[in-house]
């Protein structure tokens, strides 16, 4: 696999994982909001 292609693939995977982390962060606030509205 070419260097550039490998780098792109790495960045894509990293962004996906970062998205997952941010989802967990936001999830705590969303859960709290749902709890107080419900």
């Amino acid at each position, binding site marked *: 696999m070419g260097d550039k292609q*490998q780098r792109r693939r790495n960045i894509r*995977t*990293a962004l996906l*994982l970062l998205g997952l*982390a*941010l989802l*967990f962060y936001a999830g*705590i606030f969303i859960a709290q909001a749902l709890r*107080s509205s419900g």
Partner: protein
Amino acid sequence: MAHEHAHDHDHEHHGPPPGLMRWVKTTNHKDLGTLYLCFSMLMFFIGGLMSLVIRAELFEPGLQFVHPEFFNSMTTMHALVMIFGGLMPAFTGLANWMVPMMVGAGDLALPRVNNWGFWLLPFAFALLLSTLFIGGGAPAGGWTMYPPLVLQTGAAFPLLIFSIHLMGISSITGAINVVVTILNMRAPGMTLLKMPLFVWTWLITAYLLIATMPVLAGAVTMLLTDKYFGTTFFDAAGGGDPVMFQHIFWFFGHPEVYILILPAFGVVSTIIPTFARKPLFGYDSMVYATASIAFLSFIVWAHHMFTVGMPLTGELFFMFSTMLIAVPTGVKVFNWIATMWKGSMTFETPMLFAVAFVFLFTIGGFSGLMLAIAPADFQYHDTYFVVAHFHYVLVPGAVFSVIAAIYYWIPKWTGHMYNEKLGKLHFWLSAIFINLTFFPQHFVGLAGMPRRIPDYAVQFTDFNQISTIGAFGFFFAQFLFIGNIMRCMARKGEKAKARAWEGAHGLEWTVASPAPYHTFEVPPQIDDAETQAAH
């Protein structure tokens, strides 16, 4: 093609740039591994000094040396420094050094992110430790930061929250780097089930970090807004719920325990086969057991808070789910024993620490099972029994595995063998003093001595004195370790072969010792016999 070869050739021969800026700007996984490990040693030293303040104060009943508020700061800061500054960076350092070499990658996938992730840590801990010198003192509400108590923290509060955010970002970037490297950059032929167990345990740990560190960050952000921006997430007067903080915190906190112990399992699963000169017994079951422990770690959190009050069904659920963890953990312990069974065993220092890990971690595991029993926990909760339990898991458990890993891999890192006699002396002193420190704490805990209190009833004096002697002995014994490491770094001692240990297998042992600055720029050929033996 010819150009590419010339390029590779150049890379193989250029070493690190000279001077201090090498360490500031480095993106090399080996340099950053060394930085992480040195940083963690410094934090272990600072956290260790804090534990000595605690143990000195507890040598006798009554108040001797420090003000009770400062004692509370010491227990709080000792935990934060040891967990986030000592153990986690130590394992990240080991991952930095070893994961790329074990999977046949040239470096971690995101080297610049790696640099950033490390350099966040000194700032995070400078902020945290600076609270010791500001008006109102350092945080003293416990590392668990339960509201409303933690909201009484003075000027240290925002520094505490910001430092935890920085530590969290650092951990997440490190975890992302490890996952991307393992998923995308393995050498051709290095299938997932051919990876060394240390790599597997780190892959699973990295997922735990990505899932739980943001939860901690969310919880402490809410504390911050509760204190300064008028929200009432955890304030009952405004419709919030302080118990909710405990649920969120332990949803992070319990997987955190496994973040600290799974890489330790990986280290022990690497060392025992080497010195038993046998392949690891039940490799596949070890992988599945690690994954099972990681899954279960998400559904047991409320066993930390049985006494807060919860429905009976809740207590039963969390009690049984916690006990379930004993099954995959038992699989691991039996596999380590089966690996040693009829092996040609020798007991070099890394093996001594690894075998001690199996015994002593298991003591911590069993006392954990006792604590999992909800009705019994009402007696044990917040006593020294809990302190004894988690210190058995974290010190002769996780810390011993870090020490074992350093002894095991330091020939690869420095090109020189450590002094075996000094290593063995270090082991025996550590093993004796650590048991002197923590075993008596089971007894005082069962008899009712509460944790996080600077004074105690006179009948607990004898056991506390033994504990204090043990703690001082363990602390000073570690200078033998530092001396041994320094010796290797100063290039003294016998030169290490590429395969420093007769029974060692895996890609890291196919490169020279010390490992060249750049390894596997061209992916290595995977030798199936080598990877199978590495299991």
